[in-house]
């Protein structure tokens, strides 16, 4: 609990200086661990401006002098030119194992669904203007983060309803303008090192010093689950505003696998007989071994897990801070910090929070006498599973199951789902079962190629009960150019978002369901050619017949036979037959 309190206090520390960074390491059951990086940067106090898209915008940006200091200079113009007041970008991959990892880090507020998620609050005079800014923002970020954010378009964009009520602060430059919250998700987008590089470039240290120096694409993406987020928030007092950039990377490390990799290399070769961990209570001899679970007594350090050590504090000044926090269970875990510079090595026991200083190389070593003993895993307030039902090519269904694991408290949630326009959901088929009820329901149907379907449900679930709802949808036929070039996995349906509300209707926890894979009826694309060929044949036949009728004379059969006797072929036939007769006669 002490640690939690510290975590909460962190933003306060961050607010005091322009830059702060921290890393949390928390061992999880079954030899897994959570590593959570947080980098906060502040662009302090500047007057808010409104860039009119019709006038030459760049002028306005340049006219205001700003001292960027640690704040990345590259991102601010993008935000300013699109009048973005809030920007949330999420890159997530993998499946969060609620059962053994518990709650999402930061209560899910920094975690997106599989793929890329973008949402922004944009100030604009009208909806059209907001849309234009939104698309411009997506295009700029697409290049910036090497992600296919340029695929964000009107047919993917929704205007979440519930979050609008949470938006709060009114920092618009003129009374005529209002704020628009827009959101889009690209569930098919794979996340890889090329997304990490621009992320690191946003840091003032460029990943060369401080905690950022631990981030290596090879190790980060060899995790079980990883999430990378960028949040840019405008905070204003009466006149002037500041921009807060908070960058976050969370990932789940499989320690056993990384240690094995470190020891034995990448290939999963079988162990030699004497290295097997066998259950001696069961049958055991030279040939037989009942495997035990993974090792529980071992030690690991940052060098092995991250492939690097930390290159000192982020900056040499005192204003910014680099912190490492270790959430260890003291009964079975201990940690030491190894501080080295050149030949001199200094080792000391790690406290709950370690502050990095100077230009030392830092390596943290963790030892466990029983890795199964870890600090309590907090249960999430809600468990959700969503799956596709049905098997036909033209229709299907979605089934969502929500569980309230708490035995005492009921839980109120907002279920938010965006359906692509080619899924025509029918809300009248919505069937509910189990405890709980739908308090409010909002549905905005899709418009083909223009707008996605948008479903928001407020659901209350009593303690220790299950709530299941299903609904049916039709699958549309696409235009031929809208199909992916080759046969494919299917079309990804973006994860649904579940937000747990408190009594004031503000979000206390949020999570995403998994992506779904929808197979659409795909026509046989060779069919048009068959149709062309058949049509041409029929036309040729019809033409031939009519042409015959038009050009030929109609005669009776007798006339025809009389004429045919005089035809050249008939004459040749007659000549041949007479020759044959003559030859026979000669014999």
């Amino acid at each position, binding site marked *: 609990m002490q640690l939690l309190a510290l975590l909460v206090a962190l933003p306060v520390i961050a607010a005091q200086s322009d830059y702060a960074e921290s890393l949390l390491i928390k061992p999880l059951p*079954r030899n897994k661990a959570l590593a959570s990086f947080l980098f906060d940067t502040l662009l302090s106090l500047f007057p808010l401006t409104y860039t009119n898209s019709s006038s030459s915008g760049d002028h306005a940006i340049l006219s205001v002098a700003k001292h960027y200091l640690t704040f990345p200079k590259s991102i601010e113009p993008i935000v300013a030119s699109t009048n973005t007041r809030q920007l949330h970008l999420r890159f997530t*991959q*993998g*499946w969060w*194992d609620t059962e053994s990892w518990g709650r999402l880090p930061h209560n899910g507020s920094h975690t997106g669904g*599989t*793929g890329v998620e973008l949402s922004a609050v944009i100030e604009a005079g009208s909806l059209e203007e907001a849309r234009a800014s939104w698309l411009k923002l997506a295009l700029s970020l697409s290049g910036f983060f090497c992600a296919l954010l340029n695929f964000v378009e009107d047919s993917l964009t929704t205007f979440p309803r519930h979050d609008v009520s949470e938006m709060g602060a009114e920092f618009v430059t003129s009374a005529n303008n209002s704020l628009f919250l827009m959101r889009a998700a690209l*569930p*098919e987008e794979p996340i890889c090192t090329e997304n990490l590089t621009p992320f690191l470039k946003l840091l003032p240290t460029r990943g060369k010093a401080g905690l950022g120096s631990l981030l290596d694409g090879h190790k980060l993406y*060899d*995790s*079980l*689950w*990883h999430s990378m987020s960028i949040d840019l928030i405008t905070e204003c007092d009466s006149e002037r505003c500041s921009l807060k950039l908070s960058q976050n990377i969370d990932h789940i490390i*499989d320690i056993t*696998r990384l240690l*094995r990799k470190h020891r034995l290399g990448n*290939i*999963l*070769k*079988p*162990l*030699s*007989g004497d*290295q*097997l961990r*066998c*259950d001696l209570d*069961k*049958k*055991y001899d030279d*040939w*037989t*071994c*009942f*495997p035990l*679970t993974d090792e529980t007594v071992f030690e690991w350090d940052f060098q092995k897990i991250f492939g690097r050590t930390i290159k000192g504090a982020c900056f040499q000044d005192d204003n910014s801070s680099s912190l490492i926090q270790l959430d260890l269970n003291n009964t079975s875990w201990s940690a030491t910090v190894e501080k080295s510079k050149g030949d001199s090595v200094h080792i000391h026991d790690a406290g709950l929070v370690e502050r990095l200083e100077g230009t030392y190389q830092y390596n943290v070593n963790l030892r466990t006498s029983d890795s199964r003993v870890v600090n309590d895993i907090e249960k999430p307030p809600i468990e959700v*599973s969503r*799956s*596709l*039902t*049905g*098997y036909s090519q033209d229709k299907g269904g979605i*089934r969502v*199951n929500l569980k309230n694991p708490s035995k005492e408290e009921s839980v109120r949630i907002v279920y938010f789902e965006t359906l692509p326009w080619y899924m025509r959901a029918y809300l009248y088929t919505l069937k509910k079962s189990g405890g709980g009820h739908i308090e409010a329901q909002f549905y905005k149907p899709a418009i083909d190629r223009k707008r996605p379907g948008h479903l928001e449900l407020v659901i209350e679930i009593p303690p220790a009960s299950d709530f299941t709802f299903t609904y049916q949808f039709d699958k549309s036929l696409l235009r031929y150019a809208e199909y992916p070039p*080759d*046969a*494919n*996995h*299917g079309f*990804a349906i973006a994860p649904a978002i579940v937000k747990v509300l408190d009594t004031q209707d503000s979000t206390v926890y949020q999570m995403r369901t*998994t*992506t*779904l*894979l929808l*197979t659409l009826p795909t026509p046989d694309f060779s069919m048009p050619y068959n149709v062309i060929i058949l049509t041409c044949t029929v036309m040729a*036949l019809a033409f*031939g*017949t009519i042409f015959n009728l038009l050009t030929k004379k109609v005669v009776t*059969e007798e006339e025809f036979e009389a004429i045919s006797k005089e035809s050249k072929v008939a004459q040749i036939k007659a000549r041949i037959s007479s020759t044959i007769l003559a030859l026979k006669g000669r014999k």
Partner: protein
Amino acid sequence: MALAETVLRKVYKLGLLPKLFLILPRVSFLLALASVAWLLMLPMDGQFRNTYISENALMPGQVTSYFRESEWNYVRGFRSEVVNWNFSEMSTDNELLTNWLQDFGWSVSKHRDPKTNTTTTYAIMHAPRGDNTEAMVLVVPYFTSEGMPNKGGLTLGPALANYFAKMSIWSKNLILVFPHNGHSVLRSWVEAYHTTLDATAGSIDAALVVEYPSDSDAFGHLEINYEGLNGQLPNLDLINTVTTVASHEGIRVSVQGMSPDDIDKRDYWSRLQVFASGILRLATAGISSKSPGCESFSGWQIQAITISAAGEKGHDVTQFGRIIDSSFRSVNNLLEKFHQSFFFYLLMSPRHFVSIGTYLPAAVLVAVSFAISSLYSLASGVTTPEFITHISDVLFIFTGIEAVCLLLSLLMQTIVVNATEGYTTTITIVYGLVISTLVTVLSTLAGNNIKILSKTHSYMLLAFALFFIAMLIVSMLIVHFALAFSIGICALPLTFIQPLINMCNAGNGSLIKHKLRIAMCLLISSPITVVVALGYLINDGGMFGIANFSHGLFVSWDAMQSWTYFIIALGWYPAWSAIAVACIFGDFRIESVKQKAD
């Protein structure tokens, strides 16, 4: 056009039409013969093709599988526990297995099926960093299709689970299912997965059902079963993948329960045997209770095959595990769904096949043969004006017969499905059906006096029934070739009835002989005779086989959603009944017409 005109004129001039009409029965029979000959020709050299991997992404056998050496110790370790299990008790609730799987990091769930009154345990391993949208399934039934405890399978299941969990290469989720059997229990799990289960892992791409009944380290060869329900087959690429992986391991592969020695003869007869057995098994898929399990996945766009270890010695159990490992890793490579290669094919051996374009003409020929017979019956006793005025009556009669069949079939099915003593009820019903068939057949011999149907009606009913069979074959042609062709061949004697009647009318030979022949034709071509005979002959049947097979047929829709029962009860049986009705109550005498005309 001109050419056609000339030909038509010649045909008319030479008076070919009446001559053609006379040889129609022969043409029809020749077409049926040609259809069988067509299929007999396919196993000849040069008529079939070698299988090949069509989807390059699969790259089967390209990885070194490390399920070997000390993994073998683990396999033995698991086996030393598994052999002590009481399989029939454990299959419903296996706490041990659940704990093992949870220890390896798999999340275990249970599916309770009220219909079969069983609980199926299944475990999911979510792919690290995966997008969690696709899955591969490994099914280890507690009891194999032969009813043996699947000891080796249940050893390999947890051993592979332990091994798979160590790897980070998976791009698709893995699901391990432990049903009581591969038949209705697995089917209900598959259905629940797509309708009601909470713990799911995305759409299933491929499934392997594993049978390794022996508890020894060694096995001889690999047997692949692949037939699905309702004529569906797994993508040929999946079979090719497993075959290729097995051959990289040096393991011989057999299909259709043949011994690999027979298959390795690579001669006409071995290929014909595999081919014919393939058609028969495909036609009866879902009916036999000894189904291999892969058919439970049919209808959900899942490619599934069953691999079983057969034989005594030659290879070791980890090699079997390596086949599973390597095949899964091939499927794991797929960037698309299985869409290349063939979905409609018949195998000649594990490495030889014919594709649909090559074997389809056989069924077309049978269908044409029925259509021509139908035309012959029409031309024998019906004129065009009669046809037009009576067609609605005939349709009405036939619809009546169809309605009775529908009612009876639903009734029989409901009775058997809900009966507490399914087999006894089945035997009673089969007795009833056999007796009714015999009575029907005998009454064609006796009943000459009751002529309820008029001459035109009789001819037209017979013609329509034959036409109905032709249409039945055509409509099932592509979807379920094996059943269409089998029905066509079994019902072929029905086409001889009209020529026999015409011979009676012409007064050639003795009347009673012809009548006997007609009765024989009816008896042979009855679906009930065929079902009874099949039950008696296949799967070391005997009398028990008949009960088993008929019971399987009755419950196949309820348990497996196989259409075969309804195709027989609403397609073949009404057509047969219509012809039987025409023979018993019909009036085919041409003389009477002539006398009247005189």
